[in-house]
């Protein structure tokens, strides 16, 4: 059996590689869009006190989250046609809520007395945002992005259904011609991709939040001791 797989991979690895690349591009594009929209909106919401606006924005983001993915893809076909574009758009909608939520939580987590000190010492609004709030919220934003990335990579497989390509495409055709090696290999690639992304982003998160994290554990140790 191993021999069969080896032979298959030798034979088809350019296809697998191309599909993986395509898969990655789709996922990456949707998450990048998600970050571009959700992070600023989250920041804006955190600085805004209107209850009404909060429930409106979170309501809409929640709504996208609850539409079944297949249904969303189907709805988008008449609007955006088929191919990578509607797929990216749908996945982008899915990525909004977790990133938004974490950005919001991150900004909310900044100690108000820290902000007041910053204001009182003469940091302008932009300086407060860039030098104080964003760095302190960053670990939260990063863990939102990481979470989103992992499940967007796995959902990208579905995008093949509206002709977006990627590893899902290989799986679908594997089912069509009843070729198990193809299904298994493509699935494996998707899994490995998700795991790698998780690890990589985890490392980034850790790198940037090392200080805040150590700070937190130290503080709790002190409090307990």
């Amino acid at each position, binding site marked *: 059996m191993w021999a069969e797989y080896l032979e298959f991979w030798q034979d088809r690895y350019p296809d697998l590689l191309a599909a993986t690349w395509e898969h990655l591009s789709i996922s990456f594009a949707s998450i990048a869009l998600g970050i571009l929209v959700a992070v600023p909106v989250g920041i804006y919401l955190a600085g805004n006190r209107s209850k009404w606006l909060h429930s409106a924005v979170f309501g809409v983001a929640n709504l996208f989250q609850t539409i079944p993915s297949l249904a969303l893809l189907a709805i988008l076909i008449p609007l955006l046609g088929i191919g990578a574009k509607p797929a990216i758009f749908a996945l982008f909608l899915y990525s909004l809520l977790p990133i938004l939520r974490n950005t919001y939580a991150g900004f909310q987590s900044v100690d108000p007395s820290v902000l007041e000190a910053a204001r009182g010492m003469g940091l302008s609004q932009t300086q407060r945002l860039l030098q104080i709030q964003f760095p302190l919220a960053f670990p939260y934003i990063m863990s939102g992005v990481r979470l989103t990335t992992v499940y967007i990579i796995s959902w990208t497989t579905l995008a093949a259904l509206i002709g977006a390509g990627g590893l899902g495409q290989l799986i679908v055709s594997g089912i069509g011609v009843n070729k198990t090696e193809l299904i298994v290999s493509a699935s494996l690639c998707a899994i490995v991709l998700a795991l790698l992304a998780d690890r990589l982003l985890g490392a980034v998160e850790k790198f940037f939040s090392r200080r805040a994290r150590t700070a937190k554990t130290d503080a709790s140790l*002190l409090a307990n001791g």
Partner: protein
Amino acid sequence: MIRFVGVNKTYDDGHQVLKDLNLEIKEGEITVLIGPSGCGKTTTMKLINRLIQPTSGQIQIDGQEIASLDPVELRRRIGYVIQNIGLFPHMNIARNVGVVPRMLKWDKTKIAQKVNELLSMVGLEPRMFANRYPSELSGGQQQRVGVIRALAADPSIILMDEPFSALDPISREQLQDELIRLQTELKKTIVFVTHDMDEAIKLADTIVLMNGGQIVQSGSPDQILRHPANDFVKSFIGKKRMSANRSMEEMPTASDVMVQSPAIALPTRGLAEAIKMMESRRVDSLLIVDKGNRLLGSVSIYQVIDHYGDEGKTVADIMSPPTHTVRKNTPLSAALNLMSEHQLSNVPVVRDDHQFIGLITRGSVVRHLAEVYSREDEGEQAYVG
């Protein structure tokens, strides 16, 4: 000099927090704002660096109306220590202290030099602390950093909102002492908010006592202690400090010094009973007081022993009538004169309606003086630190 002219502040919810505030804060002095919670101390302070805008009235710094200044630039010229310290958790101590100098674009070596100088000044070895993060410092160390962070850009005005309130008494004392020492060198204009009258007395050149958004009294600690403007000020200063302060100027009265529950007996007691009572109270005489609490006289142990054989007698039969009494508000000095003049070992204290209320004895006088002097000692320590 900072001057408030007719300042009112009403928050959006319609709550008027400051009412026609007029105040002068002198240059190079520590001015302490003190008052009960919610009286508007923090609001007053935040008006100075424009964290809060007045509803009406003017605030001037050195004659210049601050409403006409750019708030961000104004704040960089005014040091600010907030109550909860508010160190930036993602910056190390050196970067925390250097925040304002960096914004003012000082050059790097000058900033580093200033940071080291300030850290050493408050006893934090720069090599050890400069690269630590705030969470790696004790509460007292963080508070020190909070204070020197406000000093970093050499502002001439520093605002401190209950900067030491979260500390244990020992670190608080230490930091107060450090502040006094720093101030003798630096001569800043410091506005200091506190709840703690001891802290105010210790630090202030001028105390401003507030209540309900208004100034109740302002003046030097000594002026306020000696001449509290009204009952509110008195209650705020506290009984203990008042009496410690008063005893230097006014004599206590008879009722301050007397024993409140001396050995007394009803006139119907027999002589054996009288001896028993003297024994158990360890006294050599009894005051005879009737059921209406009126003083009838006194019997000494000698009188009782003289008549002891006569079983039919009661204390009323052998007592001598009171020769001298004092009123409860007779000054102690008058009572003492009376006692020495007539060779009395004690003198009863009565109310104006002749009701008996207590007894001054030599022992009670000594106890009272001892109390006053030990209180004065504590007072001294509080002043000197």
